[in-house]
């Protein structure tokens, strides 16, 4: 890599700009972190402590937020009384399963769309993407009818299928871009070396790993955060975290503590996933270019 150092000169204006940027970032940080922070702290508070608020504008009494006895009873309640371990498992299986199925099918479809010329290829590709253009609610009713016919309502398989329906076109679209950037010559070399088409496809998979990584995350996020499919297709046997959390809001009793704890349980795994795969996400989504 050639050096890309840029020489900058400090002028009063640029200094002022720096200050403005720092102030903006500080506000932005508070704006982003504060709700998460409140959720996290409140999940360890007893209901009474959670509603102890300083009077409006009394910043000196802000310590009242932190003046509480930490308790894990909400988490205990979630996992031992409300069956959240099952819901967590359902979420993991539905999100992970659909991500894996979408990546496996999507990478093969994307590869052939990228490499093979056939009649009507452009139309086929557009049709695949166009299935993503309709809003989810538009297909929910027909999908429900079809799934009921196959006895898939309330099953994890049903959820995986539903998410795959929506993730697969997306997978094909993203991964085709990555495959397009891999020079043909590499797999041609592989075929001349003695591999079959399928082996050649596998030989270039490592080169699209950033794309696959990026896509896995997007796919998991979509399924993990989904409420609509989960509450309709998954209702009954395959409840996931979002609808389960929603059920904690009951007409006569809103269980704030448990809701906060459920929020933490839902958010934390995705944060870790984000951290884990951050490098892939950045390179994956921005470059996509694989040079030999």
């Amino acid at each position, binding site marked *: 890599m050639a050096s890309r150092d840029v020489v900058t000169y400090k002028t009063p204006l640029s200094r002022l700009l720096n200050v403005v940027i720092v102030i903006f970032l500080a506000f932005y940080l508070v704006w982003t972190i504060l709700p998460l922070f409140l959720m996290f702290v409140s999940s360890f508070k007893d209901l009474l402590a959670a509603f102890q608020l300083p009077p409006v504008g009394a910043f000196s009494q802000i310590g009242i937020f932190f003046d509480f006895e930490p308790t894990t009873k909400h988490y205990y309640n979630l996992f031992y009384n409300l069956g959240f371990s099952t819901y967590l498992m359902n979420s993991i299986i539905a999100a992970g399963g659909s991500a894996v199925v979408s990546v496996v099918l999507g990478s093969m479809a994307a590869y052939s769309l990228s490499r093979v010329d056939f009649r009507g290829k452009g139309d086929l590709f557009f049709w695949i993407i166009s299935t993503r253009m309709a809003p989810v609610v538009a297909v929910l009713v027909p999908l429900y009818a079809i799934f009921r016919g196959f006895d898939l309502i309330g099953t994890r398989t049903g959820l995986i299928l539903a998410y795959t329906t929506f993730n697969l076109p997306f997978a094909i679209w993203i991964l085709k871009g990555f495959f397009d950037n891999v020079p043909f010559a590499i797999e041609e*070399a592989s075929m001349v070396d*003695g591999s*079959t088409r399928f082996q050649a496809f596998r030989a270039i998979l490592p080169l699209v790993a950033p794309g696959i990584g990026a896509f896995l995350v997007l796919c998991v996020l979509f399924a993990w955060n989904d409420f609509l499919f989960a509450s309709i297709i998954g209702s009954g046997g395959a409840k996931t975290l979002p609808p389960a959390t929603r059920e904690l809001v009951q007409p006569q009793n809103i269980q704030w503590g448990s809701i906060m704890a459920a929020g933490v349980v839902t958010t934390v795994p995705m944060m870790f996933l984000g951290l884990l795969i951050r490098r892939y996400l950045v390179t994956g989504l921005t470059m996509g270019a694989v040079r030999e």
Partner: protein
Amino acid sequence: MASVTITNVWKYYGKTVAVKDLNIHCEDGEFVSVLGPSGCGKSSTLRMLAGLEHISAGDIHFGDMRVNELEPKDRDIAMVFENYALYPHKTVYENMANPLRLRGSSEDLIEKRIAFAAEMLEIEHLLQRKPMELSGGQKQRTAIGRAIVREPKLFLFDEPIAHLDAKLRARMRGELKLMQRRLGTTMIYVTHDQLEAMSMADRIAVMHNGVLQQLGTPQEIYNHPVNEWVAGFVGEPPMNFFDCELVEEGGRFVLVHPAFRQMVSEAQSALLRGALRGTSVRMGIRPDQISIGGKSTVESVAGTIKVTEPLGGDTLVNVDLKNAQLLVKTHPDFSGAMGETCHLTFDTGRWHFFASDNGIAYF
């Protein structure tokens, strides 16, 4: 090892014709270079040989076996690509091991073959590096290494050294030729660089616009080009051409150009007599077949020196004739200043005449 026979092969990309009715036969163990300018269909030809491109029409045989429908992996060939096409995530060792692995060779054999190839190519110290950490020349050696570990029936090289710097290219020419002679494997080598083709190949197939122009040894191509295009493409600096008229005087032809009159020899006149159509011809003569001096003689042609380009070993002189220009290659201590008059003598035994309509050579 195998001979290669290309019979009436055509290649279409949609409506574009890349290769037209190609016929080449290449003996077992022979080094054949396919030479032509960029876009003339060289790579298409090679890719059809490799099985990477569908053959639109015609047949390709390796030995007696027709290979048209054979998958690349079943053709027992090794190819070196113009852009090396190494596996970026694998080490040099693994890149070279790949063809053997795919054919289920034992680790012992793989190690032995790679050691042999690496020594030959002088890349032993690079085996654990990734392609990203290699220079262009080293990448190219790795790509060649990957091709030779397997001892295939046929080598297909597509401009393998086109992207190297001039010095390395000169060295690789010699090394590749030596390598092919040592292994004795049939080689089809595509290049746009006539120097590579001339210096390495047993025979050269010159292509232009998808059509094979001439197939012959480097000497045949250089000394007896079949048409004006081949004559102009092969040879550096390029041949000089003149539009001339032929008149018959006393049983021999005389070549007439506004700037000069030259006698055509008895033998050449005899060659022309049967074949000549019309009276106009294109005369071609190479820059080193013209001598330049200060004194005029009976046959010499007077011109004005336009510019001289000393190249160290030779000097190129651009000369203005009455209404033409030509290039002369002469010895390095030639002294002639710009604007001076000089006298040129053509080596008329070695010039070439081409039909002015279709460019086909009379001799």
